[in-house]
């Protein structure tokens, strides 16, 4: 029957599309991202098998039992069968749920590394700013009244606080490869979202609270950061960059930036 052929063809085409290499994840640049890809592939195999099995069965049933004048069977239930497929799906689905917890716990529940580089991230309509604590390792106090985007103080770093004098701010997130980074995500107005595809990380930035996000990137390069939570009419232009640098390059950049910050 035409419908069986159509279902089989569309299901087949759907499966075939998953073998094209063009539209897929970008290369992973962290251990977490690699673990993510591995678990995703595992999940994909499971759901692919279920998909093929279920669509195949549907196609087969349509073909096998099309009207050829046969008398329909009278069976209308089978408790054993119900029990079998209920428990089987429960085992598979809940198994997936538990198997998937590892990658989640890895980014959210593990304690931060002692030498983690802490960077404050400030989102506003429609731009990102980053702040490094400087040589003293402490972020300066902020005062909302001193916020001034035009003069390069989007955070509102309090001029009177000595801890803030050496703070480095910028519009690009630069991090060293191989060292853990802890971002402290803050928003000044509405909800935004910090998303780095290559890290397989995405986190809403919610005004009123500070949300930590940790990662260790291992491949130097420049990666795009698109805002991924609707934040208003400039949402699609709220773009930033993550630049992962070789540790030596990063240190050199940091030194230069610190010198620049130290000058009045």
């Amino acid at each position, binding site marked *: 029957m035409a419908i069986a052929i159509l279902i089989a063809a569309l299901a087949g085409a759907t499966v075939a599309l998953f073998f094209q290499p063009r539209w897929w994840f970008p290369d992973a640049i962290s251990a977490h991202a690699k673990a993510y890809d591995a678990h995703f592939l595992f999940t994909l195999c499971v759901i692919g098998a279920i998909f093929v099995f279920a669509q195949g069965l549907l196609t087969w049933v349509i073909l096998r039992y099309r009207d050829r004048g046969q008398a329909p069977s009278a069976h209308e239930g089978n408790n054993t069968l119900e029990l079998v497929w209920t428990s089987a799906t429960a085992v598979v689905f809940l198994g997936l749920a538990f198997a998937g917890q590892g990658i989640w716990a890895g980014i959210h529940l593990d304690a931060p590394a002692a030498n983690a580089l802490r960077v404050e991230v400030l989102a506003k309509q429609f731009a990102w700013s980053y702040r490094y604590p400087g040589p003293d390792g402490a972020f300066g106090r902020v005062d909302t009244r001193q916020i001034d985007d035009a003069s390069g103080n989007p955070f509102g770093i309090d001029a009177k606080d000595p801890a803030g004098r050496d703070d480095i701010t910028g519009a690009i997130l630069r991090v060293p490869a191989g060292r853990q980074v802890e971002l402290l995500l803050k928003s000044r107005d509405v909800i935004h979202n910090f998303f780095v595809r290559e890290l397989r990380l995405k986190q809403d930035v919610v*005004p009123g609270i500070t949300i930590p996000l940790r990662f260790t990137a291992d491949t130097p390069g420049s990666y795009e950061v698109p805002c991924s939570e609707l934040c208003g009419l400039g949402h699609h232009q709220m773009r930033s960059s993550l630049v992962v640098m070789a540790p030596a390059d990063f240190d050199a950049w940091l030194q230069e930036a610190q010198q620049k910050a130290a000058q009045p």
Partner: protein
Amino acid sequence: MTVFSTCHKVIGKQYIALSLFSVFIGIFLSLVMRYHLVHPDTKVKLFQLLWPDGAPGGQMTPELYLSLMTMHGTIMVFFVLTTTPQSGFGNYFLPLQIGAPDMAFPVLNMLSFWTTALSLLTLLAAFFVEGGAPLSGWTAYPPLSGLGKITGPGQGLGQDLWILSIALFCVASLMAAINFIVTIIELRAPGMGYFDMPLTCWGWFVTALISLFAFAVLLPGGVLLLLDRLAGTSFFIPGGLIVNDQVQTRSGGSPLLFQHLFWFFGHPEVYIAILPGMGLISTVLSVFSGKRVFGYKAMAIAMLAIGGLGFVVWGHHMFISGMSPYSSIAFSVLTLAVGVPSAVKTFNWLATLWGGRLRFTAAMHYALGFVSLFITGGITGLVLGQPGLDVYFHDTYFVVAHFHLIMGVAAVFAIFAGLHYWFPIMYGRFLNEQLGKLHFFLTFAGVYALFVPLHFAGFVGNPRRYPDFKEYEFLKSVMPLHIGVTHAAYFLAAVQLLFLFNYLWSKRRGALAPANPWGAATREWRND
């Protein structure tokens, strides 16, 4: 036929007419959006004509795109997917199927329809006020939706009207839910037990129960958001905000609180859209395979289980929201658990077909299409239900593809199946079968062509709710996908005109139907 009729059949048809009107607006909005996505710089006279402020000189602004998206979502979710399967079919056929003379409260029934109509008018009015329709999406997360005009055009009066419309819809749905529940509990024909009801009635029953409790939470959520906007309160607005360079004086509120309230409603809402369809599909598959529904009791219990579990999984919409990571783990396990009764239903549908004699009427085509789409759309839920995997796909086109397939298109296929199946009762005539099948084949292929590729845009990481993709290097690669998808959308929309023609033509000219043309066993086909 009076306008303010209290007859359940008239009200059912009124709901269906309202949905039909809404669905074509919704489709039109989506076409405009799809066009803009692939031709972001093209000026279109029609846009200027329709939205002089949003598209000056025909060049669509980002805020217009976002407001179209908001209205598309709201119209489709509330006035199509919630309205036809439950209120439309339910009002018409529930009393017939359980042998009741009418719904329990006919006047209340009339009131809930007209409140729904008022709600739709209020929503559409948002297009015509200063600043236009709201741009914060159908989820309307504060602070974007809570601070007024300052967060963007459309966030002024437009957003107020949107909230008002949703509040009215809540009231209408609560009235309808009470009516359905009382009718089913009290007005079943003598001797008909709960487990003697057709599965369609189970679908409507569970849906009404969900509505009774889910809308009761959305309503205060909406009211508080409105207070934040109009009375200067700060339930959902934290302190120290600087919006558009202006310091805000509010403090103390929590944006996550709104998300909890919204999704406490929002997730059950998904089941409000799909459960009546599930019941209907069970009936259609059974009738046209010449067999009883396989595992009737398991099917009814699975619906109750889906309804119950539906209330404990709302957090999977908030995996990336900043909610406690421990909550995410709990919500994830519960979310995959809700897949179990859904899978059970699929197996039971297949077992219903097994050993039958399948008659391929148009309604049967849609029902089989529903099962196929339910599998395709549902299976990706196993990815999105895991917080670890969800982080990549959240708010990308992968999610768009997922919910359009399962909640949108599958539910719409159930509506098509229902219309073809019940048309003889509603109008005494058949919807044209050949035209129906043709419409099915084209729609089915079109739906796969439209939504399957969108998953791959998700793989690339393409965020949703972007008016154009020009800003990003990595989005250049998805443009060919989007061009294909947009053409599929044109095709799909054009094909729907076939259905509209079939519907309007068959109402007057269709082949006359005998008393019980499909050989169904349920009460609505009896002539007594």
